[in-house]
């Protein structure tokens, strides 16, 4: 026979592990893991402001998977985030972010 405490502990682990909990099949919940370190940006001047801006809406693997490009590419990307997706980034920050991306993820 299984002890209640063990059962409780196992249940807690399942909750933590993000497995779906089926409460009578009336609802379903999952828990998503945090951003994977694979997407971490390179440590260099401008990393902080870039991370802050990007992570408002998405993980930074969106950055690291892109083809390395010149200043035109990264300027275009930052402009698209502001104009198309409405990212709230000041002109000064946009410049710093573009420079960081071009230096660290350029050709």
């Amino acid at each position, binding site marked *: *026979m*299984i002890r209640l405490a*063990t*059962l409780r502990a*196992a249940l807690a*682990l*399942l909750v*933590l*592990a*993000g*497995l*779906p909990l089926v409460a009578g*099949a*009336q*609802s*379903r*919940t*999952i*828990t*998503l*893991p*945090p*951003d*994977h*370190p*694979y*997407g971490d940006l390179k440590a260099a001047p401008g990393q902080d402001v870039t991370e802050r801006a990007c992570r*408002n*809406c*998405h*993980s930074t*693997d*969106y950055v690291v*998977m*892109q*083809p390395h*490009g010149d200043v035109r*590419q990264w300027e275009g*990307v930052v402009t698209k985030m502001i104009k*198309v*997706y*409405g*990212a*709230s980034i000041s002109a000064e920050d946009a410049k710093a972010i573009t420079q960081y991306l071009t230096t660290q993820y350029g050709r």
Partner: protein
Amino acid sequence: MADLDRRSFLAGAGALAALTAVSGSLGGALAADPVLAGRPLVRYPEKTDLILLTSRPAQLETPMRYFDRAITPNDAFFVRYHTFPTPTSVDLGAWRLRVGGRVDHPLELSLDELKTKFPRAAVTAVAQCSGNSRGRFSPRVLGGEWGDGAMGNAEWVGARLRDVLAAAGVRQGAMQVTFEGLDRPAFPTVPQFAKSLDLARAIEDADVLVAYQMNGADLPMLNGFPVRLIVPGWYATYWVKHLSEIQVIDHVFEKFWMKPGYRIPDNACGCVEPGQAPAHTVPISRMTVRSFIATPESGTRVAVARPATLKGVAFDSGSGIREVQTSDDGGATWHRAQLGADLGRYSFREWTAAWTPPRPGAYRLLVRAVNGIGESQGYEPLWNPAGYLRNVIESIELQAG
């Protein structure tokens, strides 16, 4: 009852590891793939180890070895989202599918009503991301840099969209039908994900489903629980997950994810000269013909003078696969593969071929498919700026001896 589900417990422990640490990375053969190299394997809720594209929103791709069979298991099925946050919790007591707009009787259907008030229909169909294999474009293009695993094939069961629309009573003057899911971006400036179909397809095609079942089970949350739209033959951008809102409209819907998003050059090939921008575009729709060798895995070693079994899948937009061929001499000669069971014109068609390497050395094996109307695959990849429609002849490299 002592066996409080030891397997669930162990699976839970595994998932916990994935939450707190790197779950693993790709093996030697795949690590050599320029697109997949360095990408970790991760385990998300209700999923097995998949290749990470992005964490947030979650985008995960299926390792090639799963495409040695026609049906892709639910836990290995790829995941693609557009905006964050994504739905993680659905209360079926409160969830309703709303049908409105230019209809006589707006509906609010519970999942039980969807299951019991409409005839149950099934279709086996391939879901493939428009940008599958985008990472292989040359010159490269910006976007989700997928390998080839943003595709999967499942048996979908649900209510026919046309039956649901008939119950609502589509009014005169209707032109298109729009679809939205439960996704709501964190910021109101981010365009809400929404897609549209022309009325004709929505009310005539018996294979367009509002699906509540995938391979005999509930949909995994990350694949659209509780229901998603199934649009066989068309890219998965139309297969709206967590579907919750259907609107009949009297105009052509041109919000962000239909225009400027998900457009292809308005010409027969959907392509332009590499690096050029198309003058006119149209919404992406039908999938191109594709075929893959799933096993042996590229980069692995096989025995000389002993037959190896090649396995994979082929598919198109619904004409069905007529033939699959392989070549070990760069396409000078092609050999017909054996086709597996026909699961319907929208399904993966499984294929197998025996291949015997005559002598030690490196081999490149090619595969191509021909569909029911004679369309096939070319030696040179077509290019467009969004990285869509890829269907070049695929190949693997094997070492014999």
